[in-house]
Each structure stands twice: as C-alpha cells, then as structure tokens.
C-alpha cells in the first residue's frame, strides 16, 4: 500500500466550514499490525473466522463496562452541533469525519444488535449489520480520529467521540485487526521500556552526550542521571525527548531546572517512556500494564516524587488515570501531587523565586502557544480550574518578552489538535495528518501575519513531531516549533560557580 499523492490544501485567512464531500478520505487507513505484535498484546494475529460474533460479544462487554459508551450510543440527538468541530472534517470534508458521522458508524451496528427499534425498523433508525464493509469503514475512520475531544466540549450531551473510537479500536483488536503503529510501539515498551526501543546502554550513552552538550553550551555541569536510587524525583518523559528535535531541547530545559533548584532527580531505564499508547487502542489492560512500569520504577528507585515531561496524552494518562491504574501512591511524599507535570514544578519554583530568568535571552523570538488537546481537554495543572492553560502561559511570559495567543476559538479548551494525535503519527497517514493540521496552521498563519510570531511553543511530543512535518508542508520553517522548556532552559540564569 503506497501512500498516494494528494492535493495540498490552501491556507485560508479564517477556517471555513467546507461543503461535505462523501468518501473523500475513505481510501485512508493505516497499515495493519503484524501477527506477532497482535499476539504479544493478547489479541488474535489475524481476522478470526467468526469475527462478527466475537466483535459483537466484545461490544456487548464494553457496553457493560463503560458507561460512556452505553450512554453515548443512546443519547445522541443527531443535532449536528459537533459536525463542524473536528479538524479532520474541516481538513478532509469527509462526512464520516464529522464527530457524529464517525460515531454513527458504530451507532448503526449498536442499534441493529442492541436495540429494539433497530431490530424491527432498521431503515427507520439507520441500523446496519456488522459486515466486512462496515468493519473496513471502522478501520478507516476510527483511525482518522485523534481522540482530541474537541467535539465533546461542544456537544450538548457531552458525547465524547474519543471514547467511541477507543472502543472501536479495542473491538477491532479483539477480532485480530490491529493498527501497526500503535501495537508495535506498545510491544516495544513492554519489551524494552520505551517507544523507540532504546535499550539501557544506548540511553545512558545518549544522556552522557547531552551532559557534554549542556556543558559546552552553558559551562555548567548539568547531570542527566539514569537509574540513580534514592533520588527525590523520578522524571518520566516521552522517549522522543532523548533524540528528536525540538524535543531534546525541552529535556535539557527540565535538567537545568532541576539542577538550578537543587532537586535530585533521575530517569529510569525501566520506565523510560511517558507515552502510553494503551489509551489510543482503548485497552484498559494494556494501558494499565504500561502504567505499572512507572509504579515499579518509582518503588525500585525509592523516589519521593514522580514528574512527567512534556507529552500531551502521557499527561492525560498520568493526571487523570495513573492513580486509578497504578495507585495508590502512598509511598511517595504526600506534600506533592502524584504525578506532577514539569510545568507545575517549574511554575512553582518560579513563584518561589528559586528560578530567575533573563527574558532577553529569548528576544530573538516572538512566541505563540499551542494548547495540546490532551493537556487542554483531558487534564489539569496546578489544581486550579483552567491551570492547564494558565501555567504554561505564565511560564512563557516569565521567560520571553514577546507572546501572542492565537485566535480565541482555536486555543484553550477549543484548541485544534495538531493532526497527529491518538496514534496517528505515522507516515502511512500523512495525508490525513497534513489535512488535519490545516485549522491550526491557519490560526498560526494569522498571528504570524498580525504579530510577527516566529515560534510556536508546545508541550507535547506528538505535537512537536507532527508540527515539524506540517510546518514544512505549509511553508513555515521546521525549527519554528519549539519545546516550552527550551525557552525555560535558554532564559534560566544558572549558577556557574560549581566549575
């Protein structure tokens, strides 16, 4: 399956609601997972013979275990309020990418098999059998949802299409139809500890390299400790932070913060990954297994606090689920929330004047901030309502002189997904990713034109990778996307006396 050429969308001044084009992206579907990766996660290797029965059983099971799924299947009034809220609909024009259109792919089957009107009057209520074509549509369109929950914010009932996409992926996995990108990655974490499949010696090497880089740069001997027992803080960060640009500058920023504040910290080779792709495939079991690695590492290293680096969905799992999945964390220092976001740590130190910044270090930049969907709509920071919006902005304002928000309709809880979340950050979905990025790119283009914005800061590994691609595609520069803690690291005034 080669990735086809596609027409490049033109950026508009304002994002407009397109007329729908049926089947516009029905050809898009990610590569399927190979047998060995399916099996290592406890799923059948390929489509099982009686897949229809298995799928319906699984659906019945999920309907009994997830109130969200059950209530959302029943309660949609088909009012259409969500239809123009999904970046994938805005970018692709495909009506199955309208949140309710996406939901209806499952709702039709639900009505047919789990409700009386659907059994007796299928035509009337749009009930359909679960055929191979329907399964293919599921595979295609439930992998065109980044589970960003923008639709859920606007729906009068609060119907969250992400819950439905997750359930659909879990059902598909249970009949042997899994997605390559997500399932391979989960396999790697289970085996090695991180998404990149980076083993401990290589990780140690990389960190050493980073120490040298920072030393050259700042003349301060900032450490990047790995597996150091009895440290105060266990830092769990997306493995992209070890390698990828612009992520790695963020990691250097965290290290500088810890160094300057005198907080002893360590990374763990066992839990060298903050990302938890178990969420993307809707699998409680897999998500829990990955989350437990962090608990194990915290116990093993005898730390007092757990802090997460910049990663959107990882922070969702950490903030909203970790306590449930892998708690209770009564063995940690009760004075700190478990877990903490690196922005919370920095913000707190900043307020206590432990950190001092020289804003002029960032005077070559004019900043805007991208609210990552999972941070914005599925988590919190600082235990104040809306803290996930204010803390990062406070930090940016403290470390730079020039900051402009993008248009109100495209930030905070209404933020547009980068287009690569939810397990879609794979080259086989590049068309979807680029089209899905369009609304965000349009909002960015406006602040670039109106305020001369030069850089967009983000606190999500997926956003950063996705934007590196999308920026080039839409005519921005690759390095205009930066880590928030890159700004922090550059502006932080460091004590050099230790040398």
């Amino acid at each position, binding site marked *: 399956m080669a990735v086809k050429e596609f027409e490049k969308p033109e950026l508009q001044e304002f994002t407009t*609601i397109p*007329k*729908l084009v049926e089947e516009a992206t029905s050809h898009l579907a990610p590569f399927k997972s190979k047998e060995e990766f399916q099996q290592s996660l406890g799923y059948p290797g390929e489509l099982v013979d009686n897949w229809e029965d298995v799928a319906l059983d699984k659906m019945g099971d999920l309907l009994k*275990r*997830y*109130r*969200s799924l*059950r*209530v*959302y299947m*029943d*309660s*949609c*009034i*088909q*009012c*259409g*309020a*969500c*239809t*123009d809220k999904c970046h994938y609909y805005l970018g692709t024009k495909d*009506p199955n990418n*309208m949140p*309710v*259109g996406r939901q209806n792919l499952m709702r039709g089957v639900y009505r047919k098999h789990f*409700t*009386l*009107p659907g059994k007796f009057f299928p035509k*009337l*209520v*749009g009930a359909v059998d679960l055929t191979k074509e329907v399964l293919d549509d599921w595979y295609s369109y439930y992998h065109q949802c980044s589970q960003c929950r923008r639709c*859920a*914010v*606007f*729906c*009068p*009932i*609060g*119907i*969250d299409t992400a819950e439905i996409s997750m359930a659909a992926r879990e059902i598909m996995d249970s009949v042997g139809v899994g997605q390559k990108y997500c399932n391979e990655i989960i396999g790697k974490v289970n085996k090695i500890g991180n998404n990149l499949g980076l083993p401990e010696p290589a990780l140690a090497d990389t960190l050493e390299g980073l120490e040298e880089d920072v030393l050259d740069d700042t003349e301060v001997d900032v450490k990047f400790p790995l597996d150091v027992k009895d440290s105060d803080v266990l830092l769990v960060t997306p493995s992209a932070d070890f390698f990828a640009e612009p992520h790695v500058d963020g990691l250097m920023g965290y290290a500088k913060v810890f160094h300057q504040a005198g907080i002893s910290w360590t990374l763990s080779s066992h839990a060298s990954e903050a990302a938890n792709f178990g969420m993307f495939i809707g699998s*409680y*079991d897999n998500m829990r297994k990955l989350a*437990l690695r962090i608990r194990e590492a915290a116990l093993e290293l005898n730390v007092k606090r757990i802090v997460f680096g910049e990663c959107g969905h990882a922070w969702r799992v950490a*903030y*909203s*689920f970790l*306590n*449930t999945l892998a*708690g209770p964390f009564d063995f940690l220092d009760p004075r700190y*929330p*478990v877990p903490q976001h690196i922005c919370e740590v920095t913000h707190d130190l900043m307020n206590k004047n432990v950190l001092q910044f020289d804003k002029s270090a960032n005077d070559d930049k004019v900043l805007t901030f991208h609210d990552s969907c999972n941070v*914005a*709509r*599925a988590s*919190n920071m600082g235990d104040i*309502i*809306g803290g*996930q919006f204010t803390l990062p902005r406070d930090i940016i304002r403290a470390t730079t002189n020039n900051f402009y928000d993008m248009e109100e309709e495209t930030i*905070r*809880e209404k933020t547009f997904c980068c287009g690569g979340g939810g397990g879609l950050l794979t080259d086989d979905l590049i068309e979807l990713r680029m089209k899905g990025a369009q609304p965000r790119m349009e909002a960015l283009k406006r602040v670039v034109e109106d305020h001369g914005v030069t850089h967009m800061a983000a606190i999500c590994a997926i956003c950063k990778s996705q934007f590196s691609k999308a920026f080039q595609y839409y005519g921005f520069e690759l390095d205009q996307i930066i880590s928030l803690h890159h700004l922090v690291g550059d502006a932080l005034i460091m004590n050099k006396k230790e040398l």
Partner: protein
Amino acid sequence: MSFVTIFYGISFYVATLILFIGLSYRIYEYATIPAPLKIPTPPAPKTKQGVAVRLIREVVFFESLFNATKWTWLFGWLFHFALLLAAFRHLRYFTDPVWFWVSWEIVQAAGHYAGYVMVFGLLGLLGRRIFVDRVRYISNPSDYLMLILIILIAVSGLMMKWFHTDIYAVKQFFLGLMYFQWTELPSDFILLLHLSLVLLLMIIFPYSKLLHAPGLFFSPTRNQPDNARDQRHIADWAKKLESKR
C-alpha cells in the same frame, strides 16, 4: 362506556407503564454501568457541588450547545423551554383542585403561547435538518419523524382553541384514569389525534434518542468532578485486575 374511552383508557395505562418502566430501567442501567476512568471535559469543576452547578447550567441554558452553534441553540432552547411552559399549563388536567400556581393566568397564558413558540423552534430544527448539508447527511428518517411528531402534537393542541372540545370532560377522563373511576372521553377528532400522538411519544421515549434527557445526567464528561489525583476512581471490574499485581 364507549369504545373510544376504553381504547384510550387502556392505551394510556399501557403507555404510562412502558414510559415509566422503560425509563426507570434505562436509568438503572446507566447508574449501574461503571465509568472506569475520569474523563471530565474542561472547564471541569473540582467538587460535586461544582458538578451540580455545571449540570444545572447545561440543563437550563444548554451552555455547550450555545458555544457550538447559535441557531441550533436558539431553536432547540426555545422548543424545550416552551415545552416546559406547555407542560405546566397541562397540569391543570391532572390536578384537582388545580395547583394554585397552575391556575394563575400567567401560567395558563404562557402555556398557550408556548405552543406557538414550540412550533417555531421545531420548524427551525427541521429546517436545519433539511437545508444544512452536514445535518442532512446525519439525519435518519426517524430524526425527521420525531420532529414532525412533536410538531403535530403542538399543532393539534393549538387547534383545540378553534375546534371546541369539552375540556372539563377531558379532565374528568384523566382524573378518572388516575383514580380508577373512569368517565367518558369526548371523541372529537382533533383531541383524539392529539392524544394518539402523545401516546406514541410516550411509548417510543425509552427506545429512542429522547434518552438524551436522562443521558445528560449520566454523561461522564459532564458529571465527574476533576479530582483524579486526589482520589482513586476504580471500577469493580478493574479492581479484579489488581489481585494479579
């Protein structure tokens, strides 16, 4: 006792049973299926009281819908609010003596004009379904029929203003049903049409998208306090996994 009376009498009993048992069962289901993870959407309140305030704002003002689309909000909110006023007016058929506030002139008059507002709101919603391509795409026959059904209920109700019906007898009929002392139901066409459509609505309620009414209160994105770090929130089925730890 006329056939009409017997037929409608029995139908109202059956429909009431279906409505209450069906709805209670749905609510029981929604209440007992666990929500295994914390998934509130922002701005998420931190406390139960905060959640109550949030739900009240959603129910009274349709806040999320307001933020989403002003037209749908306008038509939808007008319809629901008018429905409430019309329901108040109708209470006089089921209470004896009539509750004091129900008999207030203003409640009765508001209930009457609400009928027109309902029709206006519903026609607006129907218009959106027909003319907005995205809404047309997601509409099933049942979605149109539901709107038409409620429009007909409202219109037939309003028409009774002009085609005179013995309202007093209607009231006696319903009180009779409630206290098991049946009296004759007038067999005027418009009245019977109005009642038949209401019966239909009662019967399909627990099997249709009208479940959005209880659904909203059980929607985890709206009814959960955002306190995941302070409190473990673990479902019974998930607890079973813990023994394997």
